[in-house]
């Protein structure tokens, strides 16, 4: 069954809707856990460092991304944990999902950076092609 559900979170509208679906799946399966995975994109780090006054502020902004997800989880009383990595989102999510043998991967269809997706394709498409587990893409 879907015990280990990996939810890709980037703070976009779609990823928040993906969180709702993840909660629905998790509530059907006993002993299931949602793992919220958040990837800090290598390409954003220069701008992030430049635009934050201090390390403390930077970490605080990052944490804020995850708060809405954690609140949803708490509100529905599902078992969850949070994992944060640096890297390229598509590549890192697939790597981690396959490595951990997750039972299901849930991801929003579009991320925050719609401009970039026009050129390099969406993260969800990349994940969908390469992940070994079933993938639920949420519109």
């Amino acid at each position, binding site marked *: 069954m879907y015990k280990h559900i990996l939810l890709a979170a980037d703070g976009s509208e779609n990823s928040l809707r993906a969180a709702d679906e993840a909660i629905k799946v998790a509530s059907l399966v006993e002993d299931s856990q949602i793992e919220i995975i958040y990837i800090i994109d290598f390409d954003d780090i220069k701008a992030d*460092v430049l*635009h934050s006054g201090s390390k403390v502020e930077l970490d605080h902004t990052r944490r804020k991304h995850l708060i809405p997800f954690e609140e949803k989880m708490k509100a529905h009383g599902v078992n969850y944990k949070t994992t944060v990595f640096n890297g390229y989102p598509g590549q890192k999510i697939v790597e981690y999902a396959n490595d951990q043998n997750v039972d299901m991967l849930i991801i929003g269809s579009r991320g925050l950076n719609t401009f970039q997706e026009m050129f390099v394709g969406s993260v969800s498409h990349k994940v969908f092609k390469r992940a070994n587990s079933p993938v639920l893409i949420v519109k």
Partner: protein
Amino acid sequence: MNYNLKVDVIVVSKIKTEWFSNVRGDILSGILVALALIPEAIAFSIIAGVDPMVGLYASFTIAVIIAFAGGRPGMISAATGAMALLMAPLVREHGLDYLLAATILTGVIQVIFGIFKVAKVMKFIPRAVMIGFVNALAILIFMAQVPHFIGISNMTYIFVAITLAIIYILPRFFKAIPAPLIAIIVLTAIALYTNFDLRTVGDLGTITRSFPEFFIPNVPFNLETLAIIFPFSIALAIVGLLETLLTASIVDEMTDTESDKNRESRGQGIANFITGFFGGMAGCAMIGQSVINVKSGGRGRLSTLVAGVFLIFLIIGLGDLVVRIPMPVLVGIMIMVSIGTFDWGSFKYLVKAPRTDAIVMLVTVVVVVATSDLSKGVIAGVILSAIFFVSKISKIKVVKSQVNEQTIYEVEGQLFFASVEDFLAGFDQSVSNENIVIDFSSAHIWDDSAVGAVDTVMIKLQENKNHVKIIGLNKSSKKLVDQLAVYDI
């Protein structure tokens, strides 16, 4: 004895992780960085107005020395655009030897900065200034390319365009070899076998296929020389450290590790000091190259060492081909560097950030572009934001209210030299025979001027036979008032 043994074990294990925990990744990424460094080192030499060898030697020696002396494993330091732009006027007016002497002095200053832990001062440089710094740098690098491609030949424009197309389109299909290198190889080959009207690197300088040698710059050792090089060295030391520490923070963030910023400052100094004696120009950490290194899997000191060593072997092996590289290809690569350096989030920042921050950012950029001197822009930006900060916190409020025959003045804010006038204006000093209370619960008294202002108010009011009481002073404010005030309680 036991304790020493423990320390030794820690040191050895630290050396192991910093050097040999990621050998394969470090070697591969180091090679990649060396390939990406060559065109930049040549282009930055041309910006500085020196032979390509000066930048190439600098990139070799700085990278190798920083591998050992730096405080941020995995960061790449070499000849950079920011430094090249600063030294151009010195080279133009006094020649290469003065640049080498200035490089040595830059090293000395940076070592002193490192010893006095100047890295800590970084936190006083507001982000608006740092954003202005990178944007100004990007604009200057772009502007430095203009004379190399505007109005030279039609073929020049075409080569610049093809270079940019290769750099931006190719990586979507093929990532193993850096696209700028492919652009260089393909376009140099085409230029060699055709007869296009193009300038080459060889038209602007020569390449020597040998290791750098130790020599003492040929400058008179007197105060006049010092007077010439010192302003440049100070500017180079500041700008080099600024870019280095910014790069270190970015690498820290990317690798999720910490680094020793003071050791890095000292390391930069040592690297520049030695580089000057080996015919290289002053350099610093490079944001772009360090990001390439980390992205390609480089984490340890080995990656920096490999980058430097592989670079010099490439030059010794392929020096004859390097002079054939068409200038427009280098121009294309530098346009990419400037696009990559520019902070594209700045436009949103200009709209969303507090007005004063936006002004500081713009002033930093304008001053740099007007003076072609990054250090002047940074200093102007820091001073301006300090003034804005002082004016922001100097807003003091004095609220008057009437309770049971008593006049109460509530003071709110920071009382110091910049806010005393507003403070004084808040009191009606013409009244007489009244009961007056001045409440400092929401205020802080900072300096002599502040105590002087409190004195003035007290003395004026007491002269008019008012009964005045001061309440709510916090501990340190009270201490200051007790020490300095002259009014009678």
